[in-house]
């Protein structure tokens, strides 16, 4: 919202203050200013001149020859402006004078006529972007003197961030801003006159159905109005504040709103049927056309200003098209009211009508403000439309005014909470400057009554007063003081520690890259891959049809990441740690939302079964390394997944477990999914529930003495069927090799002659060692022989044996 310095001076004595310094202080004391701009500077070369005569241009019909009276001196110029009239006072610039942004003006000949001056529009003087015609100055403007002396064209515009004052209904007009500026500069706020003359005729009948919807409604009729353009000063101020002048009556309502912060509305009295105004809820489906020509279908939550028959305004939001001020309007009814803030906001949101009016009403306006607005309107109406005057008495329907809050606060509390000493008298003085009423009790405690303009929502507790004092004292005067020390150390959150370990292991041991994805799987992808995420939490309001459910696994998002990355990167491994969400009860009455880690590795070149196996085994290795480094007991990924995920290759899917409990899955992506994603090669996904991992027992590491005697290794190759589980041989080996066996590891597998077709040779390396002696060859041979015998007994052939 924009404010002008000159307008503020209507309400407070600000003479001699530097507007830019005040602007800096305002940001630190009240609210952030988004911009500060000087306008109308550099116009000393411009002079007002009266148009003495207008003549046709001899050769160019669109132009006229203007004779200008500069106060004892006449000059001639040529202009094509449409709004020239004899007697009007207009700004002109003479050759040799400088105009900001244009430079030094020169005399020109315009088709045979020497033009010795230029008449100027607002845009040409940098006053606004209005270049529809020349600026018409008030007729009383002295001619021939420099423009800045003759008319208030120089000003400073402040723009306040609207979001910074959502909690301050009192700051939505110049009067309220002036109060703040006066308080922070120690100047005086001029009192706002509340009295206004009334007409003699009986007031309009005003009926308010529910005082909660409309705590205050004032209406008064005016007669003798003539609808014409607004005078210079009003039109100029509206433009500076970003509003477009329309006519004197509408402009005055806007002027009053910008001046005191209270939106008011003028109706053409001819359009108020039955001379009655009723503030009521709309009927369900009731149609209404707002003055911008849009049709709306209302619901019973919408508040309507109606006459005896139908709606004439959408309360607090926008007037009706039919009841607005017309060119021939002579009788006007002015509405000054306050409405329920939430109701106005909901209506404006529902109908997409965010207006200057609704923006103010939704902030909780002071119900004591409407008479002030009506007083200002009444006073100024005679200026903008000479002869216009109140015709009726005022109708004033008011709910009983709520008592103004009283707050007790000790000056010591103010000092303690701010952390800087503020004497009681200073606190009282600051509050008084903001129009609080302050009494000091005998015990020194301040008894503070909140003024009505701050009482609607803003201030109700001692902390609110501390803020008032703090911001006027200046937060820059508060020295930093370290908070008190808290004894003891804080325990580390186990989940955060686990997440960090997992991230670091996957990235720096596993060589994988971390990614982050939305908590919503892509519905389009799920549909295309025909994946069912299972029971899911759903959003009630969605930004796009693609994000409807909350993710139940990270794998789905990794498939999307696979598709995206495969277009530019032939091989990669990514992981994400994040929450997934289930529609089932979890702790604290919320849905269960455990942390998962999802991993995906991809190799475009892995087109053979062997290469796909290698990719699978690499991720298995990373996964088991991570589980082992987390000190889990007996981490394993050997057992086929009971019910493989729909995206998984059914024969390449295993359960990830530790301590015998499943905590996740490891599976190759189904070739059909790979094809649908248009990704050649193979991909493997693992997903582990970190909440489940956190619940598992961890082992403590203990030192084992380093063996003093050498170990002996022996390899043994078993011939097994293609579908057999080689890992199952390990317990058999352990069971028969005797107590000197200290380790068994898989070495390699081999297919091809002399291994029979449909079989493969699987080689294990056994390590033998004794703590007290060097083993003899015979001892090792004997152990190996026992394994061989056991294998043969179990029907497993041994290669090369």
């Amino acid at each position: 919202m924009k404010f002008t310095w000159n307008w503020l001076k209507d309400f407070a004595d600000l003479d001699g203050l530097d507007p830019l310094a005040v602007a800096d202080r305002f940001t630190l004391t009240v609210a952030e200013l988004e911009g500060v701009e000087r306008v109308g500077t550099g116009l000393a070369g411009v002079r007002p001149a009266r148009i003495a005569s207008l003549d046709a241009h001899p050769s160019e019909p669109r132009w006229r020859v203007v004779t200008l009276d500069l106060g004892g001196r006449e000059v001639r110029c040529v202009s094509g402006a449409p709004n020239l009239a004899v007697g009007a006072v207009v700004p002109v610039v003479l050759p040799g004078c400088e105009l900001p942004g244009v430079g030094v003006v020169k005399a020109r000949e315009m088709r045979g006529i020497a033009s010795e001056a230029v008449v100027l529009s607002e845009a040409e003087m940098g006053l606004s972007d209005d270049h529809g015609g020349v600026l018409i100055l008030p007729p009383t403007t002295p001619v021939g003197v420099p423009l800045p002396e003759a008319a208030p064209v120089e000003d400073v515009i402040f723009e306040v961030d609207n979001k910074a004052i959502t909690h301050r209904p009192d700051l939505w007009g110049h009067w309220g801003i002036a109060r703040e500026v006066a308080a922070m500069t120690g100047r005086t706020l001029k009192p706002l006159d509340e009295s206004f003359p009334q007409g003699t005729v009986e007031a309009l009948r005003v009926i308010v159905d529910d005082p909660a919807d409309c705590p205050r409604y004032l209406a008064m009729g005016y007669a003798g109005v003539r609808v014409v353009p607004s005078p210079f000063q009003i039109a100029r101020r509206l433009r500076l504040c970003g509003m477009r002048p329309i006519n004197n009556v509408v402009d005055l309502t806007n002027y009053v709103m910008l001046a005191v912060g209270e939106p008011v509305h003028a109706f053409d009295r001819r359009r108020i049927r039955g001379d009655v105004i009723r503030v009521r809820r709309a009927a369900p489906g009731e149609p209404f056309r707002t003055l911008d020509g849009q049709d709306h279908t209302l619901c019973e939550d919408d508040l309507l200003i109606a006459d005896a028959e139908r709606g004439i305004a959408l309360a607090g939001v926008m007037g009706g098209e039919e009841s607005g001020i017309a060119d021939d309007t002579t009788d006007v009814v002015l509405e000054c009211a306050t409405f329920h803030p939430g109701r106005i906001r909901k209506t404006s949101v529902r109908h997409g009508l965010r207006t200057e009016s609704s923006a103010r009403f939704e902030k909780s306006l002071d119900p004591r403000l409407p008479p002030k607005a009506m007083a200002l309107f009444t006073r100024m109406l005679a200026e903008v439309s000479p002869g216009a005057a109140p015709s009726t008495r005022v109708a004033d329907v008011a709910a009983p005014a709520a008592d103004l809050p009283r707050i007790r606060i000790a000056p010591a509390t103010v000092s303690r909470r701010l952390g800087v000493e503020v004497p009681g008298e200073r606190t009282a003085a600051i509050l008084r400057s903001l129009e609080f009423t302050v009494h000091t009790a005998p015990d020194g405690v301040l008894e503070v009554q909140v003024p009505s303009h701050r009482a609607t929502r803003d201030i109700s507790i001692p902390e609110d007063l501390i803020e008032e004092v703090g911001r006027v004292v200046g937060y820059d005067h508060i020295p930093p003081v370290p908070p008190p020390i808290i004894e003891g150390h804080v325990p580390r959150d186990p989940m955060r520690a686990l997440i960090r370990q997992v991230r670091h292991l996957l990235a720096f041991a596993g060589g994988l890259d971390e990614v982050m994805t939305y908590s919503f799987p892509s519905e389009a992808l799920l549909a295309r891959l025909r994946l069912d995420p299972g029971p899911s939490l759903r959003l009630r309001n969605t930004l796009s049809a693609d994000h409807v459910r909350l993710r139940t696994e990270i794998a789905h998002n990794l498939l999307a990441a696979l598709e995206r990355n495969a277009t530019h990167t032939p091989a990669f491994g990514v992981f994400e740690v994040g929450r997934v969400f289930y529609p089932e009860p979890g702790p604290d009455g919320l849905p269960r939302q455990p942390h998962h880690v999802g991993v995906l590795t991809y190799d475009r070149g892995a087109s053979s079964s062997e290469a796909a196996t290698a990719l699978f085994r690499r991720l298995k290795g990373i996964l088991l390394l991570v589980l082992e480094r987390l000190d889990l007991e007996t981490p394993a990924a050997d057992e086929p997944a009971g019910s493989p995920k729909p995206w998984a290759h059914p024969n390449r899917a295993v359960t990830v477990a530790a301590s015998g409990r499943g905590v996740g899955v490891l599976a190759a992506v189904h070739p059909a999914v790979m094809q649908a994603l248009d990704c050649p090669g193979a991909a493997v996904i693992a997903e582990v529930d970190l909440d489940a991992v956190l619940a598992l027992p961890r082992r403590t590491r203990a030192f084992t003495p380093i063996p003093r005697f050498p170990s002996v290794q022996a390899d043994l190759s078993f011939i097994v069927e293609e579908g057999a589980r080689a890992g199952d041989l390990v317990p058999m080996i352990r069971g028969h090799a005797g107590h000197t066996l200290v380790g068994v590891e898989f070495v390699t597998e081999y297919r091809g002659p002399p291994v029979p077709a449909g079989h493969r040779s699987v080689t294990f390396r056994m390590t033998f060692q004794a703590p007290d002696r060097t083993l003899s060859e015979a001892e090792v041979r004997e152990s190996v022989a026992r394994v061989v015998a056991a294998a043969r007994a179990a029907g497993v052939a041994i290669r090369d044996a």
Partner: protein
Amino acid sequence: MDDLWNEAQAQIEAATTSAALRDVEVAWLGKKGRITVALKGLGALDPGERRERGQVLNRLKRDIEDALARRRAEVSRAEIEARVRKDRLDPTLPGLPVACGHLHPLTRVLEDVEDLFERMGYHVMDFYEVEDEFHNFEALNIPADHPARDLQDTFYLEDWRDRVASAIATGRDGLPTVTERNALPTRPPPALLLRTHTSPGQIRAMRTLPRPFRAVFPGRVYRFEATDASHEHTFHQVEGLMIDRSVSVANLLSAMMTMLEGVFGRRVEVRLRPGYFPFVEPGFELDVRCLVCGGRGCPMCKSSGWVEFLGCGLVHPNVLRAGDLDPSEWEGWAFGVGLSRLALLRYGIDDIRWLMSADVRFTRQF
């Protein structure tokens, strides 16, 4: 005998390679070496001469052995040096690749911030992303008709319990279509939502931690708003809270300065401005003196010299009450800062959407 020694010594000194030295050794001390042969011949001498000559020969043998060892060391040293002189490396060849992954830039910023606060004695906590209206709004003094509670700002969840009930009742899955769902603005919103800020953690921390305490809770938050280069519906914040017997604005200011010093690795100038957040009173916007221009004015700070950095304030008494704390006994301050924004600032990322892009080319830069 001296002649023998001189001859042996000359041969040893003349040998310049390990192989030549070995030949000399064999010629003198080998099985058929001259000293060996001479020693074997001692048996033919009479006892007196045998002892005398034996002593001489044995001394000679030791001398030759010593000389050989000394020369061997010299030769081998010379050989190594010769080899080293010829041995060259092209230092411009790269190191052999080691497979190493990368953490997401947000994680890097997050871990720095977590470590910083941990060093300062803060609890680092993790709270729910699906929250209820009470913790996200009411408990934080955000009244029912506050604009932030409108549908356009918050992702609300369908209540799954209703859905199950309706599925049972209708015998179908009972799920409305997207269009149907979006056409129901007048129905009162259900209690569950995606948290719009990390602030609900304030209530949960107050209710669980022993007092006094300091805690931070980072995490993912959600806003129902369209995305562009500087807006995301999913982003990260970190919330901080201190609860103690007596807490002042001066304490808050000090803590914020300490934190920013840790984040930026140097002292930064800050200022407090009035700021409105319903859950603090008084509430502040904290500005940092522009790190790009130092306050002279640049596009980063929109020529103001200051960059808005975080929101903070003294905890509102209503929030303390919601956290089961008596405002006459306990006071606190709280702050919230955008981690996503911090990451963008630190790494000069020009579009916030990169953070959630899952693009490996992005992660690999960090």
